[in-house]
């Protein structure tokens, strides 16, 4: 990897090209929505290959073992490749810490992460910060200082905990919000079965937040602690649980037709998503962060949920979904 000597001419060339293209009248508007066909992109100034030249960059990216991470990992890989970089993507690193361990061990240079996971698991705090932006800033500053890890600007989408139930059960019992769930638990404790994973029950931002905000205690013997991945199916079948812990952007909420209970009291904290980059690598290759920030800027919660659903509902491959997104947004011609 030659990162220094022959770099300047390229930068100059890119600058000239970028100016040239902008002068030709390409505008910056990014088409919204995930499902639409290729819109606009073609002649715009957004093309990654016009804005960046990373042809002297070799980068190793890690992604974790669930749909959203697989899509985000593919997005990063394909975007950086479009900008000319050589990318090695290691997928399916075990949640939650596999990608982080790989990053700290120097086996990968960059990996997507959620601010909540970083703050609680990696930086070992127990009480999270309520405001998503302040939470992000705390993680960014502390991680850089303690672990020499740089955080890119976060994508706009929030991801947070939620409670869901199967649609007909929700209709039968008039359940729309977490407040409804709280009264249901109080009135029908025998039917208030809850599937949750081991983190939700023990984290300060988990079940205890719901209990505090809605003034109810979920009976211990009605809780089944199990692997997160099988909660969705168990909840959809109502067997063994009528309620399940979910992540709000998960495509399976849609694919299994689960009713996500509205968090009217804002009990659960929203977490943002960004890319952690080894700071030595980041300082040597500052454009990598710029590329990743550019491609994640349009992803709001609705779009992320839609992308997840394309994999979980429509059965598409994460790499195809990522490729389609980059094309739709005009990042790749």
């Amino acid at each position: 990897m030659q990162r220094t000597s022959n770099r300047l001419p390229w930068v100059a060339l890119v600058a000239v090209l970028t100016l040239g293209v902008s002068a030709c009248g390409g505008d910056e508007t990014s088409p919204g929505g995930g499902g639409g066909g290729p819109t606009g992109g073609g002649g715009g100034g957004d093309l990654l290959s016009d804005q960046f030249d990373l042809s002297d960059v070799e980068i190793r990216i890690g992604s974790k073992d669930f749909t959203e991470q697989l899509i985000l990992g593919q997005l990063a890989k394909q975007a950086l490749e479009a900008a000319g970089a050589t990318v090695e993507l290691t997928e399916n690193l075990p949640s939650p810490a596999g990608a982080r361990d790989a990053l700290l061990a120097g086996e990968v240079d960059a990996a997507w992460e959620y601010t909540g996971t970083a703050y609680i698991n990696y930086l070992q705090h127990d009480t999270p910060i309520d405001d998503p932006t302040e939470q992000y800033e705390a993680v960014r500053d502390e991680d850089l200082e303690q672990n020499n890890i740089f955080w890119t600007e976060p994508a706009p989408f929030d991801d947070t905990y939620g409670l869901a139930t199967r649609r007909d059960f929700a209709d039968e019992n008039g359940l729309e919000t977490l407040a409804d769930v709280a009264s249901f638990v109080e009135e029908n404790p025998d039917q208030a079965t809850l599937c949750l994973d081991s983190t939700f029950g023990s984290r300060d931002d988990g079940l205890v937040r719901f209990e505090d905000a809605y003034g109810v205690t979920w009976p211990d013997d009605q809780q089944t602690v199990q692997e997160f991945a099988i909660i969705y199916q168990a909840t959809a079948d109502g067997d063994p649980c009528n309620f399940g812990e979910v992540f709000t952007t998960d495509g399976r909420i849609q694919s299994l037709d689960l009713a996500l209970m509205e968090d009217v009291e804002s009990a659960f904290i929203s977490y943002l998503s960004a890319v952690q980059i080894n700071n030595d690598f980041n300082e040597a290759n500052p454009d990598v962060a710029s590329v990743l920030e550019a491609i994640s800027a349009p992803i709001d919660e609705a779009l992320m949920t839609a992308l997840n659903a394309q994999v979980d509902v429509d059965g598409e491959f994460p790499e195809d979904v990522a490729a389609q997104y980059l094309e739709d947004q005009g990042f790749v011609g």
Partner: protein
Amino acid sequence: MTAVAVGGLDSRVVGRERSLLRRLRYVGVPAVVAIACAAMYLYVQSQELDNIESRIINARVIRTAAFEQIEIALWATALTLVVAVPLGIALTRPWARRVTPIIIALANIGQGVPAIGLLFFIYIVLIRNGSTAAILGMAIYAVLPVLRGTMVGLQQVDRGVVKAARGMGMSKRSVLFRVEMPLAVPILLTGVRTALVLTVATAVLAAFIGGGTFGELIIGGQAQGRPLAVAVGSLGAATLAILADWIGGIAEDLLRPKGL
């Protein structure tokens, strides 16, 4: 630890030395386990636990986990014995010669399938109850060693002894129960002990499907970067497995027919 290693040696030692070693093992194993647990207890007490740790590592969670794990292991072992011992006897009868390889192959598959995959399969497809699914899964997993133990135990009985018994006018049935089985007991018991240890140790996997056990501490600790919880859960599971082996060893000594 030393006591465990010494325990393995005793078949090679004879006479008084042997019974001395055995007595040492009877006392030594629980002593070592107790010391390890006490050391862990003191260490945990000396640490300042954060909210997450104190929700995972507390007396109530540990007690529940231990009970769940013992319950799963005992039921699984019982189920294994009920299936594998009669099956092992049947398969060593001359009339079963044709089907023996097929059944053994099936038992091999039971143990060859990754335990975690088997558990998820049983949970998702068959039984939506973590403990029951785990009991069934553990039993399938442990059938092979007990089946093997029963068969090898019966097969190693000297054919001459069997012929002599038949020659004395004993029926096939009384040869089985009065000659073959008693002679097969030591190897059979080894199979039982293996099953017990195997099910106690692998029962932690039940935590993935809502069956509780010390696996809950291990998984919860790992998932939240709290290594102390992982250590406590692992020690708990190891303690149960070592004690199961210890009890199995004593049972072997007591149940072994006199004169062998």
